[in-house]
């Protein structure tokens, strides 16, 4: 299963195993929290020097998705860069790469808390974006329905018979969705910890990412020890 189809405010969208979201009806591809330039920022601020390969890895995985789906619109849902200075740190190869990816499609940078100002790269810059019934913004505002956001890097743990499997996930109910981080150097926040644990009701579901996309109830009903699972698309 490379993706799971789910419904948000009546719109069918695909939560993909890669951590990207695809909306076929509008040909929109959305990725969140790329955190490009992370290693550069850490080196600049702290002096420890981690492997500078996350931009290559993140862009390669993004390119794979774009090739597979040929979207008309690409939305980067904020925190695309680890900070504003990090945008300047991209090598020529990397900026060229982004330009190549932007060719032939509409590219929208949503502002994040790490990258709140316009970027020196092609594409449009927006604080929020509304397309049909859906609203795209970096941090969930807790009110808007049909909202797709990022920021929290949700990670869910599923207790299987033998062990707990933890993976980055999409966290959602029928009106809102929080995306996993797409960037290579990103960690996760457990869905069981606040504020994630309090943002959704009992009907919240997750789609785990990784080798495959799989949907689970976040709060399996107490009576059956096995939560209801379903397989889709």
């Amino acid at each position: 299963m490379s993706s799971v189809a789910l419904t948000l405010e009546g719109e069918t969208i695909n939560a993909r195993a890669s951590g990207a979201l695809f909306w076929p009806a509008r040909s929109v591809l959305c990725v969140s929290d790329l955190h490009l330039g992370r290693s550069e920022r850490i080196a600049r601020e702290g002096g420890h020097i981690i492997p500078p390969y996350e931009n290559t890895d993140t862009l390669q995985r993004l390119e794979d998705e774009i090739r597979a789906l040929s979207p008309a619109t690409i939305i980067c849902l904020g925190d695309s860069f680890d900070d504003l200075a990090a945008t300047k740190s991209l090598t020529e190869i990397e900026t060229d790469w982004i330009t190549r990816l932007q060719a032939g499609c509409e590219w929208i940078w949503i502002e994040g808390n790490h990258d709140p100002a316009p970027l020196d790269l092609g594409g449009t810059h927006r604080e929020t974006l509304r397309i049909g019934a859906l609203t795209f913004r970096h941090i969930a505002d807790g009110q808007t329905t049909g909202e797709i956001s990022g920021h929290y890097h949700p990670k869910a743990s599923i207790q299987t018979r033998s062990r707990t499997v933890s993976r980055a996930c999409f966290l959602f109910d029928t009106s809102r969705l929080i995306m996993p981080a797409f960037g290579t150097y990103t960690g996760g926040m457990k869905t069981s910890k606040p504020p994630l644990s309090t943002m959704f009701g009992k009907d919240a579901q997750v789609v785990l990412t990784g080798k495959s996309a799989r949907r689970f109830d976040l709060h399996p009903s107490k009576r059956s020890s096995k939560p209801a699972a379903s397989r889709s698309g």
Partner: protein
Amino acid sequence: MNHLPPQIADWFTAKGWSPHPHQLDLLAQKDLPAQLLIAPTGGGKTLAGFLPTLTELTEQHTGLHTLYISPLKALAADIGRNLQTPIDEIGLNIRVEDRTGDTSATKKKRQRADPPHILLTTPESLALLLSYEDAPHIFKGLQRVIVDEIHALAESKRGDQLFLALSRLQTLCPNLRRVGLSATVDDPKAIAQLLAKNPDPCPILHADPGPKPFIRMLGTEVAPPWSGGGAKFSIEAVLDQVRNHRTTLIFHNTRAQAEIFFHNLWLQNHEALPIGIHHGSLSREQRERVESAMINGELRAIVCTGSLDLGIDWGDVDLVIQIGAPKNVKRLVQRIGRANHRYNTPSKALLVPANRFEVVECIAALDAVKENDLDGDPRGPGPLDVLCQHILIRACSGPFLADELYQEVKTCGAYTDLTRVDFDRCLDFTATGGYALRAYDQWKRLINRDGHWHLRDPRSTQRIRMNIGTIQDRDLLKVRLRGRGGRPLGEVEESFAAGLNQGDTFLIGGQIVAYEGLREMTVEVSRNAAKKPKIAVFGGTKFATSTKLSHRILRMFQQKAWSDLPAHTAAWLHLQRQVSQLPEPNRLLVETFPYDGNHHLCAYGFAGKNAQQTLGLLLTKRMEEAGLHPLGFVSTDYATLIWGLDPVTDPAPLFDPASLKDGLDGWLAGNAVMKRTFRTSATIAGLIERNLPSKRKTGRQATFSSDILYDTLHKYDPDHLMLDITHREAMKGLVDFNRIEEMLTRIDGRIDHVTLDRVSPLSAPMFLEIGKVPIHGSADEALLDRYEDAALQEAGIT
């Protein structure tokens, strides 16, 4: 003949004592650049080390004279107290102070400006002192360095760090003389070589080893259980022994076992004998309380772990009880030495095997002690991760020349053969990260100006200093009673805390507590009156049985009958022989059986824990390829137990030597052991930070796992220094492939496959081993599939 100055000689006379010969010998040779003293515990080792210092300090000396280094903070404090008495009684004007992680900031600052004559410290605190720009001032006038319990330090990277620090000290103080104090070891020459500045000679002095210890297995009415490590069955007999002795130390191999035993001991301690507990996971307050009660003679027994192993003077201990197999003969002998500080009376020790396999191990260990057959493995060349940290520490103290530092490092025994290429790679790593992709040009950590290496940003000294050290606390979380200012109880591993649900009860500090929740980075608990904890243990260090002991055991199995073993254990081995068979030296026994819904395979290679671990990784990899969905494995010194979703019907092809060897290279890349090794080395080398100046970052999503760094490096920069270090560390530490080859040659294809319908007697203890390694391969997907299927069926959907 006698080099004692009159006032010290008079003090001995007044006390009615006479110095031991080895104390005088060491004093007579005090001007040698290096000396190593091997003496049993209680042999006056520490005084021997300090006599030359006291002698020289009968004359005026300004500044620091002697640096004393011990592996334990508590030991440094203890020595301070013990040294003050003779100093006062002899009437010397000497200032003695300790400096450890526990010393207050004000005192530390004062010590740097005005050092005492004798400074007692640990390797980490010494490294920190050397990182200051005023290090030359602090150590001005330093004459001697005493390394206590050097045998313990020499076994680990703490020793490598210490000897690197000594090489730096020697440059600051060219006349520095070194003395090492060691317990009985198998290879004193190896330690001497580490201690001395290469190529200085280092004569070895041997103290009289004293009378042979009195040591036997504790007989109990009840037989030890088939498996488990709690030794609950022995509580009555142990309490009897406590009653009949003044003070008893009850050693355990793991913290978890100590906790469980202590809990059970108190359930049966009806006369409320004062018994305390002491181990490394308890809070400092708790430990200090037990330590002072011990020194004041208020305790009849202490349940403890290795944290009490070293030479602290615990007063009147007259019995040592070892619960669980000692795993290592050398350590056993050193523990036995804890009993009876009177040099001329034999130490008294009792071994209590916790299960029947350990009965066999205990008997083998007793034989080895009798034959004085100590075990030990050579450590190999100095590790490069520690060198990387040393370079950073050196940079904190001021600019340096690469050539000079290289020459200085080569004076360390462990780094004598360090090549310039390796040194330069380490230097490049600390300066730029050493990546094939030349990034960070403007953010280099070290820059070269006029031939000298400098820190680019002087503010980075703070971060470097905060991360000094080579001890890897696996992410530990503090445990606190809930409520404002709740009392700290100790620490548990993060992975243990992660598995807790609200209301789960577990043991810590001898009491049962219930998990309430995780707040910030603290585990909050409440007191709970439950009789039995729901979750039995939290992790802890597990010792590996030494190679020599393993081979002794294998030989013992070949006997027709076992007259020297207790009847119950002999019966167990007979049972194993009856339902399966006993492992033989030149054959490989492989058992397969179902248990708890999974299929199991147990291979008795007797190749030692590390090699069995590697075998586990290679076998699970081959099983993965064969579509058998392995879930995980656990290894001991004698066997590897693998469980998975599908049965192994023909194990022979799995053990094909050529395929196993082929598997090694592919395997080395992506497994959990390599990632664990990487995390340790990367932290020591300064690639990952353990401590950040501003506590933990807010929001856990800001941090990401070191596994991601490992995977990224492996994908984009496979020749990077850190991967090279990880490979070297794993090959000598966790991989040990040579011993697998030795085992394969020994068995030469003779594999005995026994299929059973349930757990075999010999494999039963394996199920309680900690250190299980999960395999995150296709089984995760298969588990999620089967989980979904089960859920669908339950929901009536098919």
